[in-house]
């Protein structure tokens, strides 16, 4: 019964219902090939949303993920142009390390200087984008300048699904294990749930938030390379405004903005919901201009829903406390 009531189940049902409605009129949408392509198309959003989830769990927010993605993607592309022969592993390692370093900058400022995360990441967001401009003087790096194995890697198909989709699945599995089974994962939930209690249990709140930003940055860096390679283009404004989609995916997936509550699976479903909507609109012949309004409405409904379920729980606890007196 509780499984039926859980937010994940309801969201899963919503996605299923949405897909079914579309399928009754446009059977082409639910062919395995198309579903795989929808999943692959949503993978970057899923990977970023999982990083964002970790940050939001610790009562912070990371608005710099899209800028981090763009900067790391650009650096990967520039390395590829300068040294086309470099093996893929090196590019991936560079993406992960650079992303982690950019995330660590956010983390240090939040941890050591106690600057509110929204201010820090608002600042680094504009700084990262600006640095791309300084590196490139506004020039684009186009498909013909990149080497074939650089752009081909995320598109290679394994068992019918592109590597990009597989990376999404692998990251999801790793994150599930880390969040549920590792000390750090539990510390992240503890810090968000009750920072005071976390301090008394020996958890360093600031340090945990620092790690959360590093995780978010690392995943943003990874997505940066994947994004640039998949679309075969890198310029200053790639993924502009994407940070809000990422936050939206988390909120729809049931991550509480107040911290401490949210699951990897829920976040995945939140991202998938946005992905299905985005991919379904052209199929059912609704102008893509509707997408923004629909995701906005979805965020509001989701947050209203989150608050409602959270509040009824709180009331029960209060009542029992009154009875105890």
């Amino acid at each position: 019964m509780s499984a039926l009531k859980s937010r994940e189940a309801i969201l899963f049902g919503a996605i299923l219902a949405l897909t079914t409605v579309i399928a009754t009129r446009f059977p082409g949408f639910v062919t395995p090939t198309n579903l795989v392509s929808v999943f692959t198309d949503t993978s970057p959003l899923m990977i970023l949303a999982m990083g964002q989830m970790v940050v939001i769990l610790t009562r912070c927010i990371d608005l710099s993920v899209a800028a981090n993605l763009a900067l790391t993607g650009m650096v990967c592309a520039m390395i590829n142009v300068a040294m086309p022969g470099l093996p893929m592993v090196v590019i991936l390692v560079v993406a992960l390390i650079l992303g982690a370093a950019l995330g660590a900058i956010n983390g240090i400022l939040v941890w050591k200087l106690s600057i509110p995360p929204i201010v820090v990441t608002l600042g680094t967001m504009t700084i990262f984008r600006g640095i791309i401009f300084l590196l490139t003087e506004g020039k684009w790096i186009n498909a013909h300048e990149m080497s074939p194995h650089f752009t081909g890697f995320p598109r290679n198909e394994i068992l019918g699904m592109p590597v990009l989709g597989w990376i999404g699945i692998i990251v999801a599995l790793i994150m599930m294990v880390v969040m549920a089974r590792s000390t750090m994962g539990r510390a992240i939930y503890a810090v968000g749930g009750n920072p005071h209690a976390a301090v008394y249990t020996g958890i360093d709140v600031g340090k945990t938030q620092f790690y959360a930003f590093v995780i978010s940055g690392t995943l943003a860096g990874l997505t940066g390379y994947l994004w640039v390679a998949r679309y075969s283009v890198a310029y200053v404004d790639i993924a502009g405004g994407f940070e809000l989609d990422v936050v939206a995916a988390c909120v729809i997936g049931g991550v509480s903005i107040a911290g401490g509550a949210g699951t990897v699976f829920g976040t995945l479903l939140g991202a998938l919901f946005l992905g299905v909507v985005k991919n379904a609109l052209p199929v059912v012949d609704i102008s893509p201009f509707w997408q923004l309004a629909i995701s906005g409405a979805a965020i509001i409904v989701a947050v209203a829903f989150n608050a409602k379920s959270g509040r009824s729980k709180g009331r029960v606890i209060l009542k029992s406390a009154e009875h105890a007196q």
Partner: protein
Amino acid sequence: MSHADTQTRHVPDRLRPSLYAHLVGWESLLLAVAVAVFVFNAFASPYFLDAWNLSDATFNFTEKAMIAFAMAMLIIAGEIDLSVASIIALSSTVMGLAMQMGAGTPVLVLVGLTTGLLCGAFNGALVTRLGLPSIVVTIGTMSLFRGVSYIILGDGAFTRYPASFAWFGQGYAFWVISVEFVIFVLLAIFFGILLHKTNFGRMVYAIGNNATGALFSGIRVDRVKFVLFLMTGLMSGLAAVCLTSRLGSTRPSIASGMELEIVTMVVLGGINILGGSGSIPGVVIAAFVMGLVTFGLGLLNVPGIVMSIFIGLLLIGVIALPRLWAIWRKRTV
């Protein structure tokens, strides 16, 4: 958001700060930065010290500052509105629709302001009636309002606004003083008095410092917050009138990204993003600092995106430096 609950709040035990405290206060620091930027610009470019150029420079910040005043009060009360730029887009779009139906300038202005007010009421109702966190609600309405604008306009645009409508964004009150600048000054005085000299202003501070305490001392917290959302919406509507009038056209992408510049302006002005403290004079000086930096770098042919690096560094720097200084002093003593 992060350390808010683990840090103890500093409550001043005397109301009149000493002269020294004034000298090292935030506003003075900011004023020094503004003067430094002004002097630097005057030496760096021969075109800077020209009345008309300086007048043009004010357009960089007047529209943003109108919203920033209301946003400052909202942030002091512990809430935030990230949908302001989208309210501009929606107001501007609705004004465009009204214009197509043949509305004259007074009706256009009324339509713009009303749309802003309704958007603010929508945000306010979701936050105060349903008790939702404002940061998420306004991220949602940010997509929703601009989304409606996109549904109405798609990739089109409204142009052909009546000639008399241009007065708000392109008109001059006298000599080089633009209409927008006059509105900016009047609003600065209005919000300065409202926040610092009225009961309402005290309530805003009280709510930001301790909402529960404010409620127990008889402040209708939800109503005050609702009014603040209404004001922020109304100011966004006003900014939409000015911006649409200045550009003479409406596209759904109008003012995109402006919400972050406005929050930057407010934080730079010394408003605590966690609520409870800050002043309107601070925001006024921050508006000038941002305007002068943007304009001065523009005269030196620095591209807009590089300016944003300066704004970003300024935002983090002005908050980080005093804290670094405090850490350094603690170590040496």
